[in-house]
């Protein structure tokens, strides 16, 4: 599987977005980096992309849990109900600071690729790329 054509960062914290964007840019693992401040903006961003000519190039989404307007859980629900023609293939990883047992249990039941504890680091990104894109970064 090739690298993601696009990585979407969804977080209401601008500083977090800034730092994550900086990190991903430095790692140079995607052609395109998109940022959304809540679930609703993320829906718009994804729908605008449409499925590409190469459906095997999914969008990697790093999704925050707690956000205003539409939170991570609501986004997942809404995205699932979109017709397949209107959305690109995605690999969704949730980012959270919450280790509340209730939240953890809820996340384990979701149809997502995985969840990570904040902050996002180079090691965590490498791990995601290896697990979901079989990509081993050059040393």
């Amino acid at each position: 599987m090739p690298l993601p054509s696009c990585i979407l960062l969804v977080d209401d914290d601008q500083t977090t977005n800034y730092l994550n964007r900086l990190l991903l840019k430095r790692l140079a693992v995607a052609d395109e980096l998109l940022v959304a401040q809540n679930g609703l903006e993320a829906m718009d961003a994804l729908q605008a992309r449409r499925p590409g000519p190469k459906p095997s190039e999914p969008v990697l989404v790093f999704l925050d849990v707690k956000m205003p307007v539409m939170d991570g859980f609501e986004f997942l629900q809404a995205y699932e109900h979109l017709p397949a023609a209107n959305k690109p293939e995605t690999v969704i990883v949730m980012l959270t600071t919450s280790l509340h047992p209730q939240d953890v249990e809820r996340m384990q039941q979701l149809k997502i690729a995985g969840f990570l504890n904040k902050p996002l680091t180079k090691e965590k990104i490498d791990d995601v790329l290896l697990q979901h894109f079989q990509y081993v970064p050059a040393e």
Partner: protein
Amino acid sequence: MTDRGPLTAAELAQENEALRHRLQEAEDLITAIRTGTIDALAVQAPEGPRIFTLEGADQSYRTLIEQMSEGALLLSQNGTVLYCNACLAGMVKAPLESMMGVAFHDFVPTDCQAYWEDLLAKAWRGKSKGEMPLQATNGQQRPVALALNVLVFNQTPVLAVIVTDVSEQREISAIRARVTEQNTLLERQQETLRTQAQAQQAAEQTAAETSRILEGMPHIAWTANSAGRNTYLNRRWFEYTGHNAQIDPAHSFSALIHPDDLPGAVQRWREAIESGEALEIECRIRSATGEFRWMLGRALPSRNEQGEIIQWIGAYTDIHEHKVTQARVAEAQELLRASNEQLLRINRDLDNFIYTASHDLKAPINNIEGLLAALLGELPAELVAGPAVEPLVRMMQGSVDRFKRTIEHLTEVTRLQKEHEQPQGLIELAPVVRAVMLDLVPLMEASGAQLDVDVQHCAPVPFSEKNLRSVIYNLLSNALKYRHPDRTPRVQVRCHATAEHQVLTVQDNGLGLKVAGNAKLFAMFQRFHDHVEGSGIGLYMVKRIMENAGGHVEVQSTVGVGSTFSVYFRR
């Protein structure tokens, strides 16, 4: 005779002699009649014997016999009636004139013939007596007593029979028997009456005694009949209510029971009367001063030998003080419960606050760390490593690390709270201690510590395994961490049982601490030793876990000698 032909002289002489003899008999008979020796003759006739009575023989005796009210008769040797009086003829319902010459056994019922023959046989030998019925010509029978005697008339024996009608005697004896029977009956009834009177007397005595006892009781006492109607109230009732028994004997309970308690009391009383089960009610009753005081009313049915309820005996006991105290206790308990609930709510809020706070603090501290790294990336490497910047960067990173660690610990505490509800099992101590020791191998090797564990004989404790592990981990790692620098750490793990607890002790020869501030020791983020890396959360967790499970933790310690921590598991 003329038909017999001529007679010989001898025959004639013989005939002559016979005639002379008969003449002599006739002359003798006439003499006898003249002298009154006989008064009747029985003459053999072709149709049977006939009796010819003669007047004047002995008229006065004859009249007596004729008129006596007992039957009299004379019987010849072959049982023919030679004479009978009017009374006997009446007994057998035959005309007197037809009686002479008949066979007497015609009047003896068939089934008594043998008896009669026997009587006769005895009589001919002298005399006999007997009883049997006589059968009249119309078939009726009547019982008679018979007395038979042999008499001799002119050298000829006859039987004189006196016949007494005993049917009246029979009736009399029957009446007498009936009278006796009725007398017995009367006797028995009187006996019954006497017994009843005795029973009543006993009952009255009992009732009087009961009244006397009830009267003397320090409680209100009452009785009611089986229908539930009040039949008695003791003096105490009238004293309490201020009612006068003489003026107002018919005043009712219900008028004095508090209106709020009345429907319930009436209901319970009705149920008790119906079911026959003991009554127990609590209600307020108005006293003479107008105050309503709480009373405990109890009543039991009193039953007779047949198990029927004859009356109810009840009492009222003043429980006012008790009830008021009870109400006060209930009120206090309600307050306690309310404040408990409030505390629980506050605890929950606090947990949520810690959770939210730690969560909300994580994002900015992560950002500060990230921004610091980004900033350092922008700076020239020689500047960062330089003496002016390097200590600043190190201290900033240190502060960030400490901040993050604190948040981690806070999160751990809230996690502990969530795990409070996890299921418990009966957990063996030994395997858990062994597992913790495996986790602590690096620390043990680094310190050269000697662990002496003897918990094989411990009974399993009802606990969450995860929490038990956490408790033992904290105690053992503390024992190793706060070791004395001058000696080899020795840690003893033991257990023993008390009446209520299974106790696990961890004894070390480490630094020790002042136990005076025991409460502080187990407080959150309390640290006693600066030189050792510690979060100040371990003992707080131990205390929380133990207390959540209904147990507790104790510590004994001497500074410079060592500490012993004891955890008490509820059995």
